[in-house]
């Protein structure tokens, strides 16, 4: 629990940060909330020569609603999303997920951006961003590029992020029609990473599914979108049969491993149970909202 030695820089502008990364990115690590990185340092599983702390760069902590969409700065903390009352209606999935992430101590420090860049298959936010169809904005000295969440998670702990790049913000498109979202998580105790997590974003027009985003946590080498399951619902009414079918497809999309949290077939079945329960809950809440 004693990290090796490292240099420390705390740039105060984005330009300064990208300059440092362009020079020493290969041997450096960006430090955001430190809730994943510092444990790795303490266990000496990571020994970067340099930490680039982005905590002093202004503007990275904004949450902005614009044209029905949402922009989340890379340094927005889990607790910020937990507390932002504006999210409760349109982006309930975000507000509902936040309290499931770890415990209050970690939520006060850990960031959404750090969670995505960590690319832990058991991270909750990755699935949420997949379900919401989010885009990530990456910045380097060479300029800016935008990557879809669906192509960001390459392998376990391996995001589509170059060593000289910084994630600056996450953009979530405006939902279509009437929308609702929910996060279901099976954890062994409060503050635990998911055994299974399911993020659901449902968007309905004229009583039919316009879009259904289903993100899966901890049941594949990366956060995974159950695309077939979501697609199977599009254009349909949310009948029990349609829900059951989508739940089965989502379970089939999962590729879990046996581990201390349980065997693979257990986790796959919980995906099915959660998708089914979650969609029924969303159907009910949309019906209630209407009446």
């Amino acid at each position: 629990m004693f990290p090796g030695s490292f240099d420390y820089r705390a740039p105060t502008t984005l330009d300064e940060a990208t300059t440092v990364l362009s020079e020493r990115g290969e041997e450096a690590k960006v430090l955001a909330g430190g809730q994943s990185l510092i444990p790795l340092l303490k266990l000496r599983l990571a020994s970067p020569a340099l930490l680039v702390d982005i905590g002093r760069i202004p503007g990275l902590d904004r949450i902005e609603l614009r044209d029905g969409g949402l922009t989340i700065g890379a340094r927005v903390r889990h607790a910020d999303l937990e507390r932002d009352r504006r999210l409760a209606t349109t982006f309930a999935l975000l507000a509902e997920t936040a309290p499931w992430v770890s415990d209050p101590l970690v939520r006060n420090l850990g960031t959404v951006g750090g969670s995505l860049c960590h690319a832990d298959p058991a991270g909750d936010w990755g699935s949420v961003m997949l379900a919401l169809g989010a885009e990530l904005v990456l910045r380097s000295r060479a300029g800016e590029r935008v990557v879809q969440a669906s192509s960001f998670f390459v392998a376990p702990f391996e995001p589509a992020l170059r060593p000289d790049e910084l994630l600056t913000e996450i953009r979530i498109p405006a939902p279509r029609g009437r929308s609702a979202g929910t996060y279901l998580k099976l954890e062994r105790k409060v503050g635990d990473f998911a055994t299974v997590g399911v993020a659901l974003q449902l968007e309905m027009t004229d009583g039919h599914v316009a879009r259904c985003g289903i993100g899966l946590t901890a049941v594949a080498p990366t956060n995974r979108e159950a695309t077939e399951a979501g697609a199977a619902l599009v254009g349909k009414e949310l009948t029990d049969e349609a829900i059951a079918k989508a739940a089965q497809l989502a379970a089939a999309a999962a590729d879990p491993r046996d581990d201390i949290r349980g065997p693979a077939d257990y986790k796959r079945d919980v995906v099915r149970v959660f998708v089914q329960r979650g969609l029924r809950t969303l159907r009910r809440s949309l019906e209630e909202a209407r009446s």
Partner: protein
Amino acid sequence: MSVEVRPLGGIGESVKRKEDARFLRGKGNYLDDLTLPGMLHMAILRSPHAHARIRAIDTSMAQAAPGVVAVVTGELLAQHKLAWMPTLSGDTQAVLATDKVRFQGQEVACVVAETRYQAEDALQLIDVDYEVLPAITSPQQAMAEGAPLIRDDKQGQQDNHIYHWEAGDREATDRAFASAAKVVRLTTHYPRSHPAPLETCGIVADVNPATGKATLYMTSQAPHAIRTVFSLVAGLPEHQIRIIAPDIGGGFGNKVPVYPGYVVATAASLLLGRPVKWVEDRTENLISTGFARDFHMTGELALDHDNRMIGLRVSLLSDNGAFYADAQPSKFRAGLFHIVTGSYDIPAAHVTADGYYTNKAPGGVAYRCSFRVTEASFLIERLVTNAALELGIDQTELRLRNFIRPEQFPYRSATGWVYDSGDYQRAMRLAMEKLGYEDLRREQAERRARGELMGIGVASFTEVVGAGHGAEFDIMGLRMFDSAELRVHPTGKAVLKLGVKTQGQGHETTFAQIVAQELGIPAADVEVQHGDTDNTPYGLGTYASRSTPTAGAATAVVSRKLRDKARKLAAHLLEAAEEDLEWERGRFFVRGSPERAKTIQEVAFAAYTNLPEGMEPGLEGVTYYDPPNMTFPFGTYMVVADVDRGTGQVKVRRVVAVDDCGVRINPMIVEGQIQGGLCEGWGIAFTEQITFDPDGNCIGSNFTDYLLPTAWETPEFETYATVTPSPHHPLGAKGVGESATVGSPAAYVNAVIDALWPLGVTNIDMPVTPDKVWAALRARGVGE
């Protein structure tokens, strides 16, 4: 002298804890707070393998690293005859490995450096050449034909067997089973768990090169016993060793043994002439120090036609790890497991136990278990619930029918215990009433009809705590008595010195209350000192719920001794005959004229200023108390749980706990002990486990894998008391520190089994995790 009127804080008062003022303000003094001038820091290199031969160790790079003062290996220790040390169970344990490593996390080398960071950096530069050997991770593997020999260091050791032990009467038990109408059988594993105190273990060893005196600040629950062990191990004269246990942040049994780090740090300080600090990190604590349980148990309960229990047969396989290092009374190889007949009048019982070496960390009895009483209580309470479910009679009814009756006490059990007192029926009836048992059974039937899974768990435990009496109970030959020394100052304030040592149990408050009760000095005026061997009378320490039964009794007795002297002094002051004096808490008065009185404070002053002819000055004394018997706390716990058909999750809805620990000295502190134990019991039942993969890698080496419960996930506990005093304890008190950890796991598991029984589920081993429940449901075609 003016007489202050202040609250006494005697027995039965929920006095606020004296120690909390400093703890809550961050003014405690824990081991890691200590910094001595010139102090060095030690870090330990641990084995990555569970079983491997050491071919070579190259320390040259580490030796040359910045800040490094010394690198210690087993080879170096062997030159000082310190490579091996005795364990508290009469085995040997490697201090630093010389020949082989025998569990993952075993101590291989130590670096002593100017800072901890430098020591940790240098550890990475030590090169150990290992030849990996096959690992054994269970007693079943250990006993298999052709299993690799773990302890090839021991002369004459041919296999991995450590001990065979029996209790009870085999023939009588066989006869009972031959005549049984019904036999109920259960095989279960009580998983390996860990005490996981929030403060890990550590030492600051300060051997003064000029005087030769070794002052060892140590996280120790048993400083005196450890001093003796140290003296025997290191060959240091005992008066040259002073052990100081400062404030301790939880022990739960984890801080009873001597660990290799203590020995190396002391040797390093001796050789280097500077203080050396070593404090474990979390992983070191979880993977290498005294764990708990890991008992494979098979129990059979025989019943007659009237559903009376007539026999109990148990066989045990104990997984003791690589060194047999249980800290337990030396006559009892499987601890006090033979309390397994529990609260029931079972005329015949027989227990066999076999211990095995495995490639896992040593230990076994740590963690609030009173020497394996947890395992015993769990087994009998699970068996009784299964018996009731199999027979189709109510679980409370089967228990009430078979409880030892109040008039049977003192009760001699089939395995030889003499229970001091109890009223099991009363505790159970109170629990049923507080829970609303009958209503909940009705609710359960309704829910069942709707396909919902709800269960009610019951456990009526009886513990055996408070070792010794010394004739039966010893550790390495040391009789398990304990002590108290009381000194009243001229102004009537007092200091009480104890041989036991708190780790959070509130001794500084409770023991002052005993003095208040017996001598009338307000508890606020009594300072309790403990933990420093140069400053306190000899004792065996705090574990196994023994402080109140032993040192608590000693405190009462020494207070009474002082009161006897005080009476003589009062008679002198009042110019009255001793026989004419009445004692009322805090003062003596002349019978018939209550205005002719002397307070204890006035008497104390006289002890130094105005004595009768021939009386020795002072008001102080010491008592060593060797109890005549153990104490037998008991209670009934009831748990209501709902099971999720889709995910297998268990939600504990309610917990009602009725505890009887005899007279309660400080009810608030007792309550705290019970709340904590119910919480820990939940963890053991549902989340905690230290498992190993087939290569012997420890899974559960930090708090993201070893899941301690918190207030977040545990239910609210509803606690109640009955009071059945112990007839042989001077205050009528019994121990309570372990009741809920011992009693509650079975109640939680029984609730789950009660919910699933109609589906045909008869057992799920702990921890009862959602995936195990799900598997049990799916196997019977139940799902969502």
